[in-house]
Protein backbone atom coordinates (compact mmCIF):
# COMPACT_ATOMS: atom_id res chain seq x y z
CA UNK A 1 0.00 0.00 0.00
CA UNK A 2 2.80 2.39 0.91
CA UNK A 3 4.50 1.47 -2.30
CA UNK A 4 1.36 2.28 -4.26
CA UNK A 5 1.07 5.66 -2.54
CA UNK A 6 4.66 6.34 -3.40
CA UNK A 7 4.12 5.46 -7.05
CA UNK A 8 0.95 7.57 -7.26
CA UNK A 9 2.69 10.45 -5.55
CA UNK A 10 5.55 10.35 -8.01
CA UNK A 11 3.11 10.16 -10.88
CA UNK A 12 1.16 13.16 -9.62
CA UNK A 13 4.35 15.13 -9.15
CA UNK A 14 5.51 14.27 -12.68
CA UNK A 15 2.20 15.42 -14.13
CA UNK A 16 2.37 18.59 -12.09
CA UNK A 17 5.83 19.38 -13.44
CA UNK A 18 4.88 18.46 -16.97
CA UNK A 19 2.05 20.99 -17.23
CA UNK A 20 2.71 22.85 -20.48
CA UNK A 21 3.15 26.59 -20.93
CA UNK A 22 1.00 28.39 -18.35
CA UNK A 23 -1.44 31.17 -19.01
CA UNK A 24 1.03 34.06 -18.95
CA UNK A 25 3.39 32.46 -21.47
CA UNK A 26 3.73 34.09 -24.86
CA UNK A 27 5.37 31.73 -27.32
CA UNK A 28 7.42 33.52 -29.96
CA UNK A 29 8.84 31.53 -32.88
CA UNK A 30 11.63 33.59 -34.39
CA UNK A 31 14.29 33.18 -37.06
CA UNK A 32 17.66 32.05 -35.66
CA UNK A 33 19.30 35.33 -36.69
CA UNK A 34 17.03 37.17 -34.22
CA UNK A 35 18.29 35.14 -31.22
CA UNK A 36 20.36 37.76 -29.35
CA UNK A 37 18.18 40.73 -30.28
CA UNK A 38 14.98 39.02 -29.12
CA UNK A 39 16.63 37.79 -25.91
CA UNK A 40 17.11 41.44 -24.95
CA UNK A 41 13.86 42.75 -26.42
CA UNK A 42 11.79 40.19 -24.53
CA UNK A 43 13.25 41.28 -21.17
CA UNK A 44 12.22 44.89 -21.81
CA UNK A 45 8.77 43.74 -22.95
CA UNK A 46 8.33 41.54 -19.87
CA UNK A 47 9.29 44.42 -17.60
CA UNK A 48 6.54 46.53 -19.17
CA UNK A 49 3.97 43.71 -19.01
CA UNK A 50 4.10 42.12 -15.56
CA UNK A 51 2.85 38.54 -15.44
CA UNK A 52 3.77 37.83 -19.06
CA UNK A 53 6.68 35.53 -19.85
CA UNK A 54 7.99 35.46 -23.40
CA UNK A 55 9.06 31.94 -24.33
CA UNK A 56 11.28 32.11 -27.38
CA UNK A 57 11.66 29.33 -29.91
CA UNK A 58 14.51 30.01 -32.35
CA UNK A 59 15.27 28.06 -35.51
CA UNK A 60 15.40 28.17 -39.28
CA UNK A 61 12.32 30.04 -40.51
CA UNK A 62 11.34 27.08 -42.69
CA UNK A 63 11.60 24.67 -39.77
CA UNK A 64 9.50 26.98 -37.57
CA UNK A 65 6.83 27.12 -40.28
CA UNK A 66 6.80 23.32 -40.34
CA UNK A 67 6.30 23.25 -36.56
CA UNK A 68 3.33 25.62 -36.82
CA UNK A 69 1.85 23.52 -39.61
CA UNK A 70 2.04 20.52 -37.31
CA UNK A 71 0.09 22.41 -34.67
CA UNK A 72 2.75 23.97 -32.46
CA UNK A 73 1.02 26.43 -30.06
CA UNK A 74 2.72 29.60 -31.28
CA UNK A 75 1.55 33.17 -30.55
CA UNK A 76 3.92 35.26 -32.65
CA UNK A 77 5.92 34.27 -35.74
CA UNK A 78 8.89 36.25 -37.07
CA UNK A 79 10.65 34.94 -40.16
CA UNK A 80 13.80 36.14 -41.91
CA UNK A 81 12.21 36.30 -45.34
CA UNK A 82 8.93 37.09 -47.07
CA UNK A 83 8.59 33.68 -48.73
CA UNK A 84 8.23 31.74 -45.49
CA UNK A 85 5.68 34.25 -44.13
CA UNK A 86 3.78 34.12 -47.45
CA UNK A 87 3.54 30.35 -47.03
CA UNK A 88 2.34 30.76 -43.44
CA UNK A 89 -0.27 33.28 -44.59
CA UNK A 90 -1.40 31.07 -47.48
CA UNK A 91 -1.94 28.20 -45.03
CA UNK A 92 -3.92 30.42 -42.68
CA UNK A 93 -1.37 30.04 -39.88
CA UNK A 94 -0.96 33.77 -39.25
CA UNK A 95 -3.40 36.66 -39.00
CA UNK A 96 -2.71 38.61 -42.20
CA UNK A 97 -4.01 41.88 -40.72
CA UNK A 98 -1.24 41.85 -38.10
CA UNK A 99 1.63 41.24 -40.56
CA UNK A 100 4.33 43.94 -40.57
CA UNK A 101 7.90 44.19 -41.84
CA UNK A 102 9.90 45.14 -38.76
CA UNK A 103 13.62 44.97 -39.64
CA UNK A 104 15.96 44.74 -42.59
CA UNK A 105 19.19 42.79 -42.82
CA UNK A 106 22.06 42.31 -45.26
CA UNK A 107 23.91 39.25 -46.51
CA UNK A 108 27.68 39.13 -46.07
CA UNK A 109 30.55 36.87 -47.04
CA UNK A 110 32.73 36.13 -43.99
CA UNK A 111 35.92 34.20 -43.25
CA UNK A 112 37.49 33.12 -39.93
CA UNK A 113 39.50 36.02 -38.47
CA UNK A 114 42.74 34.02 -38.78
CA UNK A 115 42.09 32.96 -42.39
CA UNK A 116 45.27 32.98 -44.46
CA UNK A 117 43.55 32.71 -47.83
CA UNK A 118 43.32 36.48 -48.29
CA UNK A 119 39.87 36.46 -49.91
CA UNK A 120 38.93 39.86 -51.30
CA UNK A 121 35.57 39.16 -52.92
CA UNK A 122 33.10 36.39 -53.69
CA UNK A 123 34.91 35.82 -57.00
CA UNK A 124 37.89 34.48 -55.00
CA UNK A 125 35.75 31.56 -53.76
CA UNK A 126 36.69 29.75 -56.97
CA UNK A 127 40.32 29.51 -55.75
CA UNK A 128 41.43 25.91 -55.16
CA UNK A 129 42.53 26.89 -51.62
CA UNK A 130 38.89 27.45 -50.69
CA UNK A 131 37.66 23.95 -49.88
CA UNK A 132 34.60 24.49 -47.71
CA UNK A 133 31.99 27.20 -48.02
CA UNK A 134 29.19 27.13 -45.43
CA UNK A 135 25.69 28.39 -46.11
CA UNK A 136 22.22 27.73 -44.78
CA UNK A 137 20.24 24.95 -46.43
CA UNK A 138 18.28 27.01 -49.04
CA UNK A 139 15.26 24.79 -48.54
CA UNK A 140 14.58 25.96 -45.00
CA UNK A 141 17.09 28.72 -44.14
CA UNK A 142 16.31 32.21 -45.53
CA UNK A 143 19.99 33.28 -45.36
CA UNK A 144 20.76 30.23 -47.49
CA UNK A 145 18.07 31.19 -49.97
CA UNK A 146 19.49 34.71 -50.28
CA UNK A 147 22.96 33.20 -50.74
CA UNK A 148 21.72 31.00 -53.55
CA UNK A 149 20.07 34.01 -55.17
CA UNK A 150 23.22 36.14 -54.89
CA UNK A 151 25.49 33.42 -56.27
CA UNK A 152 23.07 32.69 -59.09
CA UNK A 153 23.10 36.38 -60.01
CA UNK A 154 26.90 36.31 -60.25
CA UNK A 155 26.80 33.00 -62.13
CA UNK A 156 28.84 31.12 -59.49
CA UNK A 157 26.20 28.94 -57.83
CA UNK A 158 26.65 25.74 -59.83
CA UNK A 159 30.46 26.01 -60.09
CA UNK A 160 30.89 26.01 -56.30
CA UNK A 161 28.45 23.16 -55.49
CA UNK A 162 31.19 20.73 -54.44
CA UNK A 163 32.40 23.13 -51.73
CA UNK A 164 29.07 23.69 -49.99
CA UNK A 165 28.55 22.76 -46.36
CA UNK A 166 24.84 23.20 -45.61
CA UNK A 167 23.79 24.30 -42.12
CA UNK A 168 20.37 23.74 -40.57
CA UNK A 169 20.10 27.38 -39.54
CA UNK A 170 22.17 30.51 -39.96
CA UNK A 171 23.68 30.31 -36.46
CA UNK A 172 25.07 26.86 -37.16
CA UNK A 173 26.73 28.29 -40.27
CA UNK A 174 28.20 31.08 -38.14
CA UNK A 175 29.47 28.53 -35.62
CA UNK A 176 31.31 26.64 -38.38
CA UNK A 177 33.19 29.86 -39.22
CA UNK A 178 34.04 30.88 -35.66
CA UNK A 179 35.47 27.38 -35.08
CA UNK A 180 37.52 27.65 -38.28
CA UNK A 181 35.94 24.50 -39.70
CA UNK A 182 35.10 26.18 -43.01
CA UNK A 183 37.07 28.58 -45.20
CA UNK A 184 34.24 31.00 -45.88
CA UNK A 185 30.52 31.37 -45.25
CA UNK A 186 27.46 33.44 -46.01
CA UNK A 187 25.49 34.83 -43.06
CA UNK A 188 23.43 37.92 -42.27
CA UNK A 189 25.43 41.03 -41.41
CA UNK A 190 23.87 40.96 -37.91
CA UNK A 191 25.23 37.43 -37.38
CA UNK A 192 28.71 38.54 -38.43
CA UNK A 193 28.42 41.45 -35.97
CA UNK A 194 27.42 39.01 -33.21
CA UNK A 195 30.58 36.95 -33.79
CA UNK A 196 32.68 40.10 -33.38
CA UNK A 197 36.42 39.69 -33.76
CA UNK A 198 36.21 35.95 -34.48
CA UNK A 199 35.26 36.58 -38.10
CA UNK A 200 36.24 39.02 -40.85
CA UNK A 201 33.64 40.41 -43.25
CA UNK A 202 34.94 40.14 -46.82
CA UNK A 203 32.09 41.91 -48.58
CA UNK A 204 28.39 42.69 -48.51
CA UNK A 205 26.52 40.68 -51.14
CA UNK A 206 24.06 42.23 -53.56
CA UNK A 207 20.66 40.53 -53.33
CA UNK A 208 17.66 41.01 -55.57
CA UNK A 209 14.96 40.89 -52.90
CA UNK A 210 15.84 42.95 -49.81
CA UNK A 211 16.07 40.84 -46.64
CA UNK A 212 12.98 42.28 -44.94
CA UNK A 213 11.85 40.41 -41.84
CA UNK A 214 8.08 40.07 -41.43
CA UNK A 215 6.32 39.43 -38.11
CA UNK A 216 2.70 38.44 -37.48
CA UNK A 217 0.38 37.13 -34.77
CA UNK A 218 -0.44 33.44 -35.22
CA UNK A 219 -4.09 32.81 -36.05
CA UNK A 220 -4.32 30.23 -33.26
CA UNK A 221 -3.20 32.76 -30.62
CA UNK A 222 -5.86 34.05 -28.27
CA UNK A 223 -3.59 36.30 -26.23
CA UNK A 224 -3.85 40.09 -26.49
CA UNK A 225 -0.16 40.28 -25.50
CA UNK A 226 0.76 38.79 -28.90
CA UNK A 227 -0.34 41.95 -30.68
CA UNK A 228 1.31 44.01 -27.95
CA UNK A 229 4.63 42.24 -28.55
CA UNK A 230 4.47 42.98 -32.29
CA UNK A 231 3.63 46.64 -31.54
CA UNK A 232 6.50 46.82 -29.07
CA UNK A 233 9.01 45.67 -31.69
CA UNK A 234 7.70 48.32 -34.11
CA UNK A 235 7.84 51.06 -31.45
CA UNK A 236 10.77 53.46 -31.12
CA UNK A 237 12.04 51.53 -28.08
CA UNK A 238 11.78 48.15 -29.83
CA UNK A 239 13.52 49.47 -32.94
CA UNK A 240 16.27 50.98 -30.79
CA UNK A 241 16.97 47.60 -29.17
CA UNK A 242 16.96 45.79 -32.54
CA UNK A 243 19.23 48.52 -33.91
CA UNK A 244 21.89 47.84 -31.28
CA UNK A 245 22.21 44.35 -32.78
CA UNK A 246 22.77 45.74 -36.27
CA UNK A 247 19.23 45.40 -37.61
CA UNK A 248 18.16 48.26 -39.86
CA UNK A 249 14.71 49.83 -39.99
CA UNK A 250 12.52 48.37 -42.73
Amino acid at each position, binding site marked *: MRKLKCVLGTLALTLLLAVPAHAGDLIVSAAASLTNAFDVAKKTFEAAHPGVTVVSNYG*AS*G*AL*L*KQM*ESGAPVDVFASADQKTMDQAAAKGLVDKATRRDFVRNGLVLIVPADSKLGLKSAADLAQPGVV*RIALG*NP*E*IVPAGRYTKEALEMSGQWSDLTKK*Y*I*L*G*NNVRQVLDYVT*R*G*EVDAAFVFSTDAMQAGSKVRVVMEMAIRTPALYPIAVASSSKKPEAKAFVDFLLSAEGQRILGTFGFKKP
Partner: protein
Amino acid sequence: MPEFLSELLLPALVPLGLTLKVSLTATAGACLFGIAAGFALSRRNMPGRELLDALCTLPLVLPPTVIGYYLLVLFGRRGVLGLWLQETFGVSLVFTWQGAALAACVVAFPLVCKAARTAFEGVDQNLEHAARSLGACEGSVFLRVSLPLAWRGVLSGTMLALARAMGEFGATLMLAGNLPGRTQTLSLAIYDAVQAGRDNEAMFLVVLTSLVCILLLLASGKFLKLSPQT
Protein backbone atom coordinates in the same frame (compact mmCIF):
# COMPACT_ATOMS: atom_id res chain seq x y z
CA MET B 1 5.94 3.01 -60.50
CA PRO B 2 8.73 4.75 -62.49
CA GLU B 3 7.87 7.92 -60.59
CA PHE B 4 8.21 6.09 -57.31
CA LEU B 5 11.59 4.83 -58.48
CA SER B 6 13.01 8.15 -59.57
CA GLU B 7 11.52 10.29 -56.79
CA LEU B 8 11.82 8.12 -53.71
CA LEU B 9 13.81 4.94 -54.15
CA LEU B 10 16.83 6.18 -56.11
CA PRO B 11 17.51 9.25 -53.91
CA ALA B 12 17.22 7.00 -50.85
CA LEU B 13 19.97 4.67 -52.05
CA VAL B 14 22.67 7.27 -51.37
CA PRO B 15 21.89 7.75 -47.64
CA LEU B 16 21.25 4.01 -47.32
CA GLY B 17 24.65 3.13 -48.79
CA LEU B 18 26.31 5.77 -46.64
CA THR B 19 24.56 4.49 -43.51
CA LEU B 20 25.80 0.95 -44.16
CA LYS B 21 29.35 2.16 -44.88
CA VAL B 22 29.44 4.35 -41.78
CA SER B 23 27.84 1.85 -39.40
CA LEU B 24 29.92 -1.13 -40.57
CA THR B 25 33.16 0.85 -40.25
CA ALA B 26 32.06 2.11 -36.84
CA THR B 27 31.15 -1.40 -35.69
CA ALA B 28 34.50 -2.79 -36.84
CA GLY B 29 36.26 -0.11 -34.80
CA ALA B 30 33.98 -0.56 -31.79
CA CYS B 31 34.52 -4.32 -31.98
CA LEU B 32 38.30 -4.07 -32.06
CA PHE B 33 38.61 -1.58 -29.18
CA GLY B 34 35.63 -3.04 -27.32
CA ILE B 35 37.10 -6.54 -27.21
CA ALA B 36 40.49 -5.22 -26.14
CA ALA B 37 38.99 -3.02 -23.41
CA GLY B 38 36.51 -5.69 -22.32
CA PHE B 39 39.31 -8.24 -22.00
CA ALA B 40 41.51 -5.85 -20.03
CA LEU B 41 38.64 -5.00 -17.70
CA SER B 42 37.87 -8.67 -17.08
CA ARG B 43 41.36 -9.26 -15.60
CA ARG B 44 41.02 -9.06 -11.84
CA ASN B 45 44.56 -7.80 -11.27
CA MET B 46 44.00 -4.78 -13.49
CA PRO B 47 44.69 -1.54 -11.53
CA GLY B 48 41.96 1.15 -11.51
CA ARG B 49 39.57 -1.33 -13.06
CA GLU B 50 36.26 0.18 -11.96
CA LEU B 51 37.29 3.73 -12.87
CA LEU B 52 38.27 2.56 -16.35
CA ASP B 53 35.02 0.67 -16.64
CA ALA B 54 33.11 3.84 -15.78
CA LEU B 55 35.05 5.79 -18.41
CA CYS B 56 34.33 3.12 -21.03
CA THR B 57 30.62 3.21 -20.18
CA LEU B 58 30.41 7.00 -20.33
CA PRO B 59 29.47 7.25 -24.05
CA LEU B 60 26.45 5.08 -23.27
CA VAL B 61 25.02 7.45 -20.69
CA LEU B 62 26.16 10.84 -21.96
CA PRO B 63 23.81 12.60 -24.40
CA PRO B 64 25.13 12.16 -27.97
CA THR B 65 25.39 15.95 -28.30
CA VAL B 66 27.92 15.97 -25.44
CA ILE B 67 29.97 13.30 -27.22
CA GLY B 68 29.61 15.25 -30.46
CA TYR B 69 30.87 18.39 -28.76
CA TYR B 70 33.88 16.61 -27.23
CA LEU B 71 34.74 15.13 -30.62
CA LEU B 72 34.30 18.48 -32.37
CA VAL B 73 36.59 20.20 -29.88
CA LEU B 74 39.19 17.40 -30.11
CA PHE B 75 39.07 16.69 -33.84
CA GLY B 76 38.12 20.12 -35.23
CA ARG B 77 40.60 22.07 -37.32
CA ARG B 78 41.72 23.86 -34.15
CA GLY B 79 41.48 20.83 -31.85
CA VAL B 80 44.56 19.08 -30.47
CA LEU B 81 43.99 15.83 -32.36
CA GLY B 82 42.50 17.61 -35.38
CA LEU B 83 45.62 19.73 -35.78
CA TRP B 84 47.85 16.69 -35.42
CA LEU B 85 45.89 14.70 -38.01
CA GLN B 86 45.94 17.66 -40.36
CA GLU B 87 49.69 18.20 -40.02
CA THR B 88 50.74 14.55 -40.06
CA PHE B 89 48.35 12.99 -42.54
CA GLY B 90 46.65 15.99 -44.12
CA VAL B 91 43.22 14.67 -43.18
CA SER B 92 40.35 16.37 -41.43
CA LEU B 93 37.46 14.40 -39.95
CA VAL B 94 34.91 17.20 -39.68
CA PHE B 95 32.31 17.02 -42.49
CA THR B 96 33.55 13.64 -43.76
CA TRP B 97 32.02 10.15 -43.63
CA GLN B 98 35.04 9.04 -41.61
CA GLY B 99 34.00 11.64 -39.01
CA ALA B 100 30.50 10.17 -38.98
CA ALA B 101 32.05 6.72 -38.52
CA LEU B 102 34.17 7.97 -35.61
CA ALA B 103 31.13 9.48 -33.90
CA ALA B 104 29.13 6.28 -34.37
CA CYS B 105 32.11 4.20 -33.21
CA VAL B 106 32.41 6.11 -29.94
CA VAL B 107 28.73 5.73 -29.06
CA ALA B 108 28.70 2.06 -30.07
CA PHE B 109 31.93 1.15 -28.26
CA PRO B 110 30.48 0.68 -24.72
CA LEU B 111 28.00 -1.90 -25.99
CA VAL B 112 30.79 -4.18 -27.22
CA CYS B 113 33.01 -3.39 -24.25
CA LYS B 114 30.34 -4.21 -21.64
CA ALA B 115 29.26 -7.42 -23.37
CA ALA B 116 32.88 -8.50 -23.89
CA ARG B 117 33.81 -7.87 -20.26
CA THR B 118 30.91 -10.00 -19.01
CA ALA B 119 31.71 -12.70 -21.54
CA PHE B 120 35.42 -12.83 -20.67
CA GLU B 121 34.64 -12.90 -16.96
CA GLY B 122 32.45 -15.93 -17.61
CA VAL B 123 35.35 -17.87 -19.09
CA ASP B 124 36.61 -20.55 -16.72
CA GLN B 125 40.06 -19.39 -15.62
CA ASN B 126 41.18 -22.98 -15.10
CA LEU B 127 41.02 -23.48 -18.86
CA GLU B 128 43.27 -20.47 -19.38
CA HIS B 129 45.69 -21.76 -16.70
CA ALA B 130 45.69 -25.17 -18.32
CA ALA B 131 46.63 -23.67 -21.69
CA ARG B 132 49.44 -21.70 -20.04
CA SER B 133 50.76 -24.79 -18.26
CA LEU B 134 50.87 -26.54 -21.63
CA GLY B 135 53.20 -23.82 -22.86
CA ALA B 136 50.85 -21.43 -24.66
CA CYS B 137 51.89 -17.77 -24.61
CA GLU B 138 49.41 -15.06 -23.44
CA GLY B 139 48.49 -14.11 -27.01
CA SER B 140 47.73 -17.65 -27.95
CA VAL B 141 45.73 -18.21 -24.72
CA PHE B 142 43.61 -15.21 -25.69
CA LEU B 143 43.12 -16.20 -29.32
CA ARG B 144 42.65 -19.95 -28.86
CA VAL B 145 40.95 -20.19 -25.46
CA SER B 146 39.45 -16.99 -24.06
CA LEU B 147 38.10 -15.41 -27.25
CA PRO B 148 36.46 -18.57 -28.68
CA LEU B 149 34.76 -19.20 -25.31
CA ALA B 150 33.59 -15.60 -24.97
CA TRP B 151 32.62 -15.28 -28.63
CA ARG B 152 28.85 -15.50 -28.19
CA GLY B 153 28.69 -12.63 -25.74
CA VAL B 154 31.04 -10.52 -27.83
CA LEU B 155 28.94 -11.18 -30.91
CA SER B 156 25.68 -10.14 -29.31
CA GLY B 157 27.37 -6.94 -28.11
CA THR B 158 28.60 -6.34 -31.64
CA MET B 159 25.11 -6.72 -33.08
CA LEU B 160 23.77 -4.17 -30.59
CA ALA B 161 26.67 -1.87 -31.51
CA LEU B 162 25.79 -2.14 -35.20
CA ALA B 163 22.18 -1.23 -34.47
CA ARG B 164 23.27 1.71 -32.33
CA ALA B 165 25.72 2.91 -34.99
CA MET B 166 23.01 2.78 -37.66
CA GLY B 167 20.70 5.00 -35.63
CA GLU B 168 23.36 7.51 -34.57
CA PHE B 169 22.20 11.10 -34.96
CA GLY B 170 23.36 13.69 -32.44
CA ALA B 171 27.10 13.13 -32.35
CA THR B 172 27.19 12.60 -36.11
CA LEU B 173 25.36 15.86 -36.78
CA MET B 174 27.83 17.77 -34.64
CA LEU B 175 31.04 16.26 -35.98
CA ALA B 176 30.19 15.37 -39.57
CA GLY B 177 27.40 17.85 -40.33
CA ASN B 178 24.42 17.05 -42.50
CA LEU B 179 25.79 17.03 -46.03
CA PRO B 180 23.67 15.26 -48.65
CA GLY B 181 25.71 12.60 -50.43
CA ARG B 182 28.67 12.95 -48.09
CA THR B 183 27.65 12.61 -44.44
CA GLN B 184 23.87 12.46 -44.62
CA THR B 185 22.96 9.05 -43.23
CA LEU B 186 19.39 7.76 -43.11
CA SER B 187 18.59 9.28 -39.73
CA LEU B 188 19.89 12.69 -40.85
CA ALA B 189 18.07 12.43 -44.19
CA ILE B 190 14.82 11.82 -42.29
CA TYR B 191 15.41 14.87 -40.10
CA ASP B 192 16.12 16.96 -43.20
CA ALA B 193 13.05 15.75 -45.06
CA VAL B 194 10.77 16.47 -42.09
CA GLN B 195 12.23 19.96 -41.57
CA ALA B 196 11.79 20.84 -45.23
CA GLY B 197 8.25 19.47 -45.25
CA ARG B 198 8.96 16.63 -47.71
CA ASP B 199 6.59 14.28 -45.91
CA ASN B 200 6.42 11.54 -48.57
CA GLU B 201 10.18 11.25 -48.61
CA ALA B 202 10.34 11.23 -44.81
CA MET B 203 7.72 8.48 -44.60
CA PHE B 204 9.50 6.40 -47.23
CA LEU B 205 12.86 6.75 -45.44
CA VAL B 206 11.26 5.84 -42.11
CA VAL B 207 9.78 2.66 -43.56
CA LEU B 208 13.06 1.85 -45.31
CA THR B 209 15.03 2.29 -42.08
CA SER B 210 12.59 0.09 -40.18
CA LEU B 211 12.87 -2.64 -42.83
CA VAL B 212 16.67 -2.54 -42.77
CA CYS B 213 16.65 -2.83 -38.97
CA ILE B 214 14.21 -5.75 -38.99
CA LEU B 215 16.38 -7.56 -41.55
CA LEU B 216 19.41 -6.87 -39.40
CA LEU B 217 17.74 -8.26 -36.28
CA LEU B 218 16.57 -11.39 -38.10
CA ALA B 219 20.03 -11.94 -39.55
CA SER B 220 21.72 -11.46 -36.19
CA GLY B 221 19.29 -13.90 -34.56
CA LYS B 222 20.19 -16.54 -37.14
CA PHE B 223 23.88 -15.74 -36.80
CA LEU B 224 23.83 -16.11 -33.02
CA LYS B 225 22.10 -19.49 -33.28
CA LEU B 226 24.73 -20.74 -35.72
CA SER B 227 27.67 -19.63 -33.62
CA PRO B 228 29.23 -22.30 -31.34
CA GLN B 229 27.55 -22.81 -27.99
CA THR B 230 29.56 -22.34 -24.85
